């Protein structure tokens, strides 16, 4: 009897304790909905072409590829469980996991993801009529792909016979095939040890052919006309309003998904964003322009502001080697003048316009970003250019710049003060500006800038900077303005003498950037031609051993920088923000879609403080080093 009573009391006590504990656990639980905002609307959502960040965020989370980057940036299995490659890195075989499903917008499972879906994906990407895609980066990587695309283009020009006949050639021409239901194989045109870095991009995403055929031109126009295989499915897509991503109940890795729902709302004004964050209606917010200074000085919020990681995007200046401005044209051919420019531009002052607190950290002295490409020993590619990196902001050396200018002047200006080979006259730089060429010093240098406050401020600073270093009697900066698209209205027609732009890095090989800077290359906007550089790039890209390959690429890159053909300026990314996202839990990757994934992210109740951030950063870097050493063994 007594025992029974005791037992009952004990049970009651346990119950009470359990209740308190669950109650406690609930109140202390971390949030599981990610609230964020966006400003530009997504017009169409096809997985192979997502030019804007909002589209990338959605696609990265609703679609998985063969592999992905983990939070350290290493390649990790995704839809492929494992993969192998031939010794010469030309044949890559991926073993898919069984039971990965395509789901629809209500989270209902439709069909299994099979090897054929990856073949069909590439078939879709290769057809310019089906989708726009950044196919140029893999065109020459996969066997026969360039030929197949060429055939389709020819057909579309001449239209002889049936297009289907050309389309059928895909299977025999292009080096991709489904060996069986769960194995897909890619055959590459040349040894490509860095092939994995292509696989995290949108181009290698799978596609459910049957569904796409049924949807026709409506594919990607609304949530009903898309199928999903990622950690989330698209539950709501209302243009001009919101995206809601809901956790996919059939996802293979669902235990690792802490965030149950992602709600992205369109909010036009950044001030509203911050206000919403302060009231707890958003998970994270980024600060821009004046807001940074305002909140950095705000005692209540300054401790929560952290700088996000730099991206692999690099901003660089490039002179125009085809300028119509004869004075500038004559000088830019001189290496000493290019070196003078390299040492004359005060990059730090210019970077401070965009980031007044950590501008120096944003500067970059190489064409390729740090911490993205590693050789087989785990050495960073850019370590071969350490001397350039060590210069930091010290590339700005006005004395040296003047000395270089003096030697260019001696070579080009004759005793009468005339610039050799330049005829006086008037020249129009498009409709932007008209120059009076007098064939005498000062040289006129046309700098074309956008109309925003920052751009204008930067142009004025650059003008003051160069005129101060060289003296107005030697060089005069002529400012011109463009209003629309910079690439189309300024860079392409060559309406500038000196210009900068941002360049994104597409896959893990120096060729991604240097290969496009050769004579006539895709991003060789200034139009220079350095045969020695071209030869080095060609030689480097034929090497399979990474350390050897990178050595040659580094040599080539040095040529461009020291020769003053490309003047690296600063890194992209590095924005200030406040967030309740636990730092370093998100996937990381210099290219591709993984870094836009919410997979793995853990949220906390309060915004991350500076101290927390620094502490986690140290821990993270330590862990990263350990991982690297394991990886290299």
């Amino acid at each position, binding site marked *: 009897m007594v025992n029974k009573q005791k037992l009952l009391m004990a049970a009651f006590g346990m119950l009470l304790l359990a209740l308190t504990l669950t109650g406690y656990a609930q109140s202390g639980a971390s949030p599981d909905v990610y609230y964020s905002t966006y400003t530009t609307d997504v*017009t*169409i959502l096809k997985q192979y*072409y997502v030019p804007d960040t909002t589209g990338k965020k959605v696609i990265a989370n609703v679609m998985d590829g063969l592999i992905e980057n983990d939070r350290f940036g290493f390649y990790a299995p995704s839809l492929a469980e494992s993969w192998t490659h031939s010794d010469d890195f030309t044949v890559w075989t991926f073993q898919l996991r069984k039971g990965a499903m395509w789901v629809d917008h209500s989270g209902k499972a439709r069909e299994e993801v099979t090897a054929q879906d990856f073949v069909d994906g590439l078939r879709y990407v290769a057809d*310019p*009529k089906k*989708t*726009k895609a950044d196919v140029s980066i893999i065109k020459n990587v996969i066997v026969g792909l360039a030929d197949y695309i060429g055939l389709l283009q020819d057909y*579309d*020009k001449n239209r002889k016979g049936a297009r289907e006949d050309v389309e059928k050639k895909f299977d025999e021409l292009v080096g991709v095939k489904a060996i069986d239901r769960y194995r897909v194989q890619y055959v590459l045109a040349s040894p490509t040890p860095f092939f994995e870095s292509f696989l995290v991009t949108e181009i290698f995403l799978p596609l459910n052919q049957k569904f796409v055929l049924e949807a026709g*031109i*409506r594919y990607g*126009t*609304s949530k009903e006309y898309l199928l999903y295989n990622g950690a989330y499915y698209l539950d709501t897509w*209302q*243009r*001009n*309003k*919101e995206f809601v991503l809901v956790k996919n109940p059939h996802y293979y890795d669902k235990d690792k998904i802490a965030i149950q729902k992602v709600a992205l*709302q*369109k*909010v*036009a*004004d950044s*001030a*509203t964003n911050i*206000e*919403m964050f302060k*009231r707890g*209606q958003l998970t994270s917010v980024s600060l821009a322009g004046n807001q940074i200074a305002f909140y950095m000085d705000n005692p209540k919020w300054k401790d929560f502001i952290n700088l996000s990681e730099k991206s692999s995007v690099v901003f660089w200046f490039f002179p125009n080697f085809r300028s119509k401005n004869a004075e500038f044209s004559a000088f830019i051919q001189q290496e000493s003048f290019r070196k003078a420019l390299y040492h004359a531009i005060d990059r730090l002052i210019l970077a401070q316009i965009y980031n007044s607190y950590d501008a120096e950290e944003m500067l970059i002295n190489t064409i390729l970003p740090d911490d993205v490409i590693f050789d087989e020993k785990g050495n960073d590619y850019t370590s071969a250019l350490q001397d350039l990196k060590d210069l930091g902001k010290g590339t700005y050396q006005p004395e040296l710049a003047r000395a270089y200018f003096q030697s260019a002047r001696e070579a080009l200006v004759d005793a009468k003060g005339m610039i050799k080979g330049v005829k006086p006259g008037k020249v129009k730089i498009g409709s932007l500006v008209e120059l009076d060429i007098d064939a005498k010093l000062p040289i006129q240098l046309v700098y074309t800038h956008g109309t925003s406050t920052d751009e204008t401020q930067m142009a004025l600073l650059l003008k003051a900077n160069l005129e101060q270093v060289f003296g107005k009697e030697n060089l005069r900066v002529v400012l011109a303005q463009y209003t629309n698209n910079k690439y189309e209205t300024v860079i392409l027609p060559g309406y500038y003498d000196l210009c900068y732009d941002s360049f994104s890095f597409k896959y893990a090989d120096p060729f991604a950037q240097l290969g496009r800077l050769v004579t006539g290359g895709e991003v060789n906007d200034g139009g220079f031609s350095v045969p020695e550089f071209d030869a080095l790039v060609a030689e480097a890209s034929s090497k399979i051993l990474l350390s050897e390959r990178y050595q040659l690429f580094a040599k080539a890159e040095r040529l461009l920088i020291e020769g003053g053909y490309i003047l690296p300026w600063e890194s992209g990314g590095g924005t200030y923000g406040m967030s309740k996202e636990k730092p370093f839990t998100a996937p990381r990757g210099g290219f591709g879609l993984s870094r836009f994934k919410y997979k793995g992210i853990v949220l906390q109740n309060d915004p991350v403080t500076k101290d927390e951030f620094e502490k986690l950063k140290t821990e993270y870097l330590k862990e990263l080093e350990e991982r690297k050493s394991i990886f290299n063994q």
Partner: protein
Amino acid sequence: MATAQKKTPAKPRTRMKRFFQSYGFRRSWQSALTVFLVLFFVFVLLRLMPIEGYFTRQDYEIMTEAQRADYLEENGITGNPVVLFFRFLGNLFRGDLGMSFRIQPNVEITRILSEKIPYSLMFGIASMGISLFFGFALGMAMAHYKDRLVDGAGTLYVVVVRAVPSLIYLFLIQIWVTGFFNIPMTYSSKDPSTWFLPVISLSLASIAWYAIWLRRFMVDEENKDYVKFAKAKGVPQKRIISGHVLRNALVPLAQYIPLQLLLTISGSLIIESIYSIPGMGGLLIEAIKEKDNGLVQSLVMLFSVLGVLGVYLGDMLMLLVDPRIKLAGKTDGE
């Protein structure tokens, strides 16, 4: 309806004749003709736009010249504009406005509109109801207590609302009011607490508009001889106001009400933007900016048809409110 005033029923033929000669009939066919001409000219003028706007961006880039020409012909862009126009009218009656090319590539324009219009319409009508009620109430109060405290306060409100750029006070209202009541800053269809602020914000300017004009017209009327006469005759003040002054003062305002009601469809650029309402505000501007010719065409046509219809209904409403207008017709010399 113009014959409703006649006391003895006229012979059918005279009634018919009178109908055809009436003001109402004349306004009807004039409006129909205007609508037709507007549709025609918008249609023809849009054929002169740069042709990129008839392709999705991707299609335009990958097609060759010849393919583009074929495509334009297939889709009724090039060819005899008159023939094309009648084909377009045929499609229009079947409810087919074509596709959007740039804003929402490969989505039917009717679908875009049917998704967006309800938001603008709901907020617009709610705000118009509020504006009419409060605007008239304020206007009447201001007229009644002319040169007193109410009038002064009302005038202050009107001046502030009309003189201060709306963006400033709308934004401040959003921040302060949502902060004070602790409600979400942006609109959500699931949370009714977010519905009020956009409606109130939309109403502020129109309340001021109705109030100031009603006050003005009422004050004008009150100074007229017939009112003085009625007062002298001993008609109660209440009746003078409701039966005479208010009715006459409403006449010039009534004309605009249908137009304003119909054009609520076009939405509000600022308010929809700050509260993230996916309505029609800014759609036309965006379509023009993106050169989405199909969408521009549909929107311009929609707005102009509604504009003409609004003016027409306004005139018809005047017929009801103001008996004098019926007599203004050419033949109505009785």
